[in-house]
């Protein structure tokens, strides 16, 4: 069963067409990596999934339920409000810039949403969140403010924060691009163990090693189109599209 599926998703900024008829389907437990040159529309696509951008036209399905259907910038149908909120929370998002709350400690960052959105009790939230901090290897940093954490640690806190809402699918937008090279590894290993634990993930990344080893499915996006897709073995060793070959040559 597809957890997340899109049909003919288009997005325009003014006259600039950023996404052109994107069809994608993510199965339960699958790790999908989206690669592609800068400006291909990868971020825009991820952001359209959890409604940080509003698509121009197309359909988005979550749990095989029609979540949103728009044509020509007009909403044709959308799930009713309570369901909309619930489905939005099925997607957790990790940003390139971490976006931790600077005025909250690591633990408070993670606890904020469970307490205020899920109305969890403080004690329950603290137990859950300390467990998550432990999972990303930062149990002893619970009371540090983000400013005192390294980039890699901040991104791990951000991952734990997204996990605290118990999402079914995690969206990563270049989670390691803002990091110093020596800090990339710690974040990737957290993501790897997350994938191994069966989390469904959509990862936009320039880390080809991660895509090759962890992904089940790789999508090469270019100029707002899916230029080529398939299992990593195929994309990385025998790409068919010359654009894919050209891109891989430039990054590998």
């Amino acid at each position: 069963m597809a957890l997340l599926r899109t049909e003919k998703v288009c997005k325009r900024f003014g006259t600039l067409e950023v996404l052109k008829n994107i069809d994608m389907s993510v199965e339960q437990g699958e790790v999908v990596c989206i690669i592609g040159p800068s400006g291909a529309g990868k971020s825009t696509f991820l952001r359209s999934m959890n409604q940080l951008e509003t698509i121009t036209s197309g359909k988005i399905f979550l749990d095989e339920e029609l979540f949103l259907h728009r044509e020509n910038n007009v909403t044709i149908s959308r799930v009713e409000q309570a369901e909309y909120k619930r489905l939005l929370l099925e997607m957790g998002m990790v940003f390139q810039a971490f976006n931790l709350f600077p005025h909250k400690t690591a633990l408070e960052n993670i606890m904020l949403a469970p307490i205020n959105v899920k109305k969890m009790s403080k004690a329950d939230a603290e137990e859950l969140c300390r467990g998550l901090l432990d999972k990303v290897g930062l149990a002893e940093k619970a009371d540090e403010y983000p400013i005192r954490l390294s980039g890699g640690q901040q991104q791990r806190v951000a991952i734990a924060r997204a996990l605290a809402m118990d999402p079914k699918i995690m969206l990563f937008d270049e989670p390691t691009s803002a990091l110093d090279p020596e800090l990339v590894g710690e974040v990737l290993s957290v993501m790897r163990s997350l994938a191994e634990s069966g989390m469904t993930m959509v990862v936009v990344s320039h880390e080809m090693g991660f895509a090759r080893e962890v992904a089940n499915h790789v999508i090469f996006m270019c100029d707002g189109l899916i230029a080529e897709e398939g299992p990593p073995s195929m994309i990385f060793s025998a790409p068919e599209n010359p654009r894919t070959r050209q891109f891989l040559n430039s990054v590998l």
Partner: protein
Amino acid sequence: MSSQNKKPARVNSRLRVACIVVAAILVIGAVMALVKPPMSDLVERIPEEMVDRAGANYSQTEYNYLIFNIARGRNVRTAESDTYIGIFGMVIQINDGFPAKLANMLFWLPALLSGARITISLTIVSMLAGVFLSVFLALGKISKIKLISKPCSAYIFFFRGTPLLMQLFFVYYALPMMSTALTINDKFTAAFVAFALNNAAYCAEIIRAAIQSIDKGQFEVSHALGLTYAQTMRLVIIPQSFRRLIPPVANEFIMVLKDVSLVSLIALSDLTHTTRSINSSSSSVLVFIPAMIIYLVITAFFTFVFNRLEKRFSVYQ
């Protein structure tokens, strides 16, 4: 935590010197307070002819300060005066020169301080009310709903675009003529209303700028975590803008402190109005010196308070 351990020894010795100085001043003050002659001794020295007991111009004044007391008799018709200071068990008469001028300033001090009390309380209450209102105005102005943002923008435009003095006159003189329901008889309340409304407009702009300076990623991650707009503002954006708000709000506070002097034009006896009346009744310009010193002391005090606040809110920066 670490800064406490790293405190250099020099700071500690400086602290000890400061403690010794303060203790010495306190001891000297206590001694001076105990040995100063009683008020009646001073008052009895004032010659009978100095004291004009006719009508309202009774002009024998006396003040008791902690470490000295001071009494003055003044003949209103001849404008002659006698001033006595009781200090360290002695009674000293001073009638001219610098000591007399200083004594005069001390005579004005109680009136000036009660003026200062009005200035400070008007500043604080109108600032509090203004900041409270301004949060709603700022949120209203950045709202996407035109029906909310347009009136808020208009309000801000109006109050920033017309003179404060005109707004004060409007509240105090014009409103009562328009409707009895809008009549504000008490000068302090009228001034409070005008200043709070005006303040709200300025603070709203400060708050709007602070909110809009917060990284857009904070809104995005709040959305991704399922926070509502109100929760995002209350839990994420406004707390972060606090520290950025403090310097401009402190600045605004000090502006208001001085703008409050406009109330002397509706004859509310704030510090400026009191200074002006002492100036005209005593025909001495010296009163401006203690008055301005009082303004400076108030400003310095609040600047200190706001600096401390800013430090407190920057733990995470």
